């Protein structure tokens, strides 16, 4: 009779063990034995010693409690963060750091989005860049040296390649340097598809001369752009917007170039009207839409005129 199992603790324990091992075998052990759980994208690189040191800081400080590192294949999410995450992007992640909560934004694609200077300033005092931010300040990490000796042992433990020079260079790096290097390493294994252009080349600002557009542009500027370009737009992390210089060359640029710079951001060596960008401007097209971007162009033009 089946009821006797409740009088036989050892038999009972065996049946329970078998019971829990069935689900375990199907959902955990079996997938582990198949290649689908061990994919690696072709242009995925192991972490450098500095990046790994930064990843260790990311773990130590519990950053993963507030930031995720996986973009879901949902329309708004891809717009906000970039291409959705692929299984083959995480082959060197021991442990994975996908996280489970977005108190801050996802950072799977943050690498290259901002300049190093932006990151230092932001870690130092997040509220300088985002007034409403509740992220703790991490400027104190600049007073902590990376432990070069430990770094070598850690690289060896994970089997990542490194050079002697790379290790020697670690000795004058701080934990903040390492953390910034880690931020910049994130999310490059998947090629970033260019978005179809939002306007045609040569388009002129349809809102030119509209004073309401200047006011609207000023509002958008203050909320989103002032942190990097300064409240007076005289430049800080990003360049001065009130002068005649555009992308390091003095001389006028078309409305369309201003539009594209705001909408798509800049990457190193991108070309705009023969000018070469150094990179570091994030793309805002997904957030602002055409009208707000043209308003911004109006606002920038209004400042130029005052000069």
């Amino acid at each position, binding site marked *: 009779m089946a009821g006797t199992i409740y009088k036989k603790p050892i038999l009972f324990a065996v049946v329970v063990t078998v019971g829990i091992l069935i689900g375990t075998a*199907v959902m955990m052990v079996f997938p582990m034995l198949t290649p689908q759980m061990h994919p690696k994208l072709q242009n995925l690189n192991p972490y450098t010693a500095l990046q790994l040191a930064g990843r260790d800081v990311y773990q130590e400080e*519990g950053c993963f409690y507030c930031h995720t590192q996986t973009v*879901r294949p949902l329309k708004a*999410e891809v717009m906000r963060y970039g291409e959705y995450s692929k299984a083959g992007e995480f082959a060197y992640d021991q*442990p994975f750091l*996908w996280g*489970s*909560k977005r108190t801050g934004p996802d950072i799977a694609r943050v690498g290259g989005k901002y300049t190093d200077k932006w990151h230092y300033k932001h870690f130092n005092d997040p509220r300088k860049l985002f007034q409403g931010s509740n992220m703790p300040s991490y400027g104190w990490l600049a007073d902590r040296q990376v432990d070069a000796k430990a770094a070598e*042992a850690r690289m060896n433990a994970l089997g990542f390649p490194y050079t002697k020079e790379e290790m020697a260079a670690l000795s004058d790096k701080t934990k903040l340097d390492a953390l910034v290097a880690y931020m910049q390493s994130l999310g490059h294994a998947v090629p970033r598809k260019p978005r179809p252009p939002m306007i045609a080349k040569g388009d002129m600002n349809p809102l030119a001369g509209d004073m309401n557009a200047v006011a609207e542009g000023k509002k958008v500027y203050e909320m989103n752009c002032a942190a990097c370009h300064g409240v007076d737009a005289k430049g800080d992390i990003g360049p001065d917007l009130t002068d005649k210089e555009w992308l390091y060359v003095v001389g006028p640029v078309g409305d369309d170039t201003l539009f594209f710079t705001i909408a798509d951001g800049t990457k190193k060596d991108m070309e705009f009207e023969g000018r070469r960008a150094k990179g570091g401007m994030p793309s805002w097209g997904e957030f602002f839409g055409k009208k707000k971007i043209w308003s911004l162009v109006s606002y920038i033009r209004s400042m130029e005129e005052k000069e």
Partner: protein
Amino acid sequence: MAEDTSYEWKPVKGFALSGLFWGAVSVLIGLIISIQLWKPELNIAPFLTYGKLRAVHVNGLAFGFAVAEIFALSYYMVQRLTRVPLLFPKLAMVQLYIFNAAIVAAAVSLLAGMTQSKEYAELEWPLDIGVVILWVMFAVNIFGTIIKRKEEQMYISLWYLIATVIAVAVLYVVNNLAIPVGLFKSYSIFAGVNDANIEWWYGHNAVGFVFTTPILAMFYYFLPKSTGMPIYSHRLSIIAFWSLVFAYLWTGAHHLVYTPLPDWIQTVGIAFTMFMIAPSWGSVVNGYYTLAPDWSQMKTNYLAKFFILGITFYGLQTIQGPTQGLRVVSQLIHYTDWVPGHVHMGTMGWVAMTVGASMYYVIPKVYNTEIYSVKLANTHFWFVLIGQLIFSITMWILGIQQGAMWKAISPDDGSLSYTFMESVVNNYPYWKMRTVGGLLFFVGLCMFAYNIVMTVLRAKKIPAPAGQGR
């Protein structure tokens, strides 16, 4: 009865009071980090930042509070249900000392940033070994005592305890496998997608076999004991037990919906998660029908109130959880504050109420006295209930708002309606409200702690007349 005097209550007392202490400290830390979320200046680097304290809060409550009370109440139940004293009482006392030393070491190491960075498995490898040793000690005493038992039939609570002992051992050992680099650092032996799958196979079942099965063991034992009503249906408890134990291990992937984890694993995980409603509600229904012949106890017996509200939150939790697993719901609320709202209904509602009531029952028994104040226990009940409801409901509302703001697209030009920062700014009033809920809960918990401590102190001062000990 003559055999009563030979029961070993010392480990029960030790673990119960240790757990109470760690629980109070960890809830206080929870209160502090809830304030840090809306007052970032309160992050004091390097040790007292949110990223460090959150780990201490969660581990303090999972290991310091829940596991300690599981040890305490299991050692009580196993002696009562087998009608023999604990087989190795000295081992249990050694376990108690190691346990407290391990909790101190765990807190210090987490504040120092030593973490494996896997949720519920943060502790570094030397402490993992300590946890395994403690668990083996627990297993030896539980199994040893059961094997030596005088009561032939094993009661439901013993089934759940056996399942707890086995499942936690398997889960904990596998998920914590790591490559050590020195004493304070290790890297997971698993990588990427596979690591994620193993972590949430573990993570969800840590919830299952720490916050569910041992708590159900308490529920099935202490509800009938404190109300005098036998469990409504033995057959229902059999069905609920086996289906829960079988299905739980399949469900972890619902934590990884829409991640790069292969779709089939997500889908099977979601399907089993939906199935889990059945065994969960088996216990809920059994609990309600147990008290059904005499609902007046909800007014007259404060313990009945705790247990019935506790199982109610278990029921709500096990409806809400599977709903969240569905892709259509997950896409909206995953990664939002909805999730801490969900988690805290389970912990502050189901776990804290059931454990609290069990302790109200056990402490007077093992100290051979009466509870210090029933009135205070009633006040405790209302504070933790209202505190928890404010916490959870606030977070659910906020979670839906966050999810909606993140996905909102302007109908005019198809651009995103809100920047991330705009969604953060929207959080502040809700986060403050959560702190209010947490504060009420903490005050309730302090009443509980005071009541227990006074019960203990009074028992030591005025020994109860001989023959009253049970």
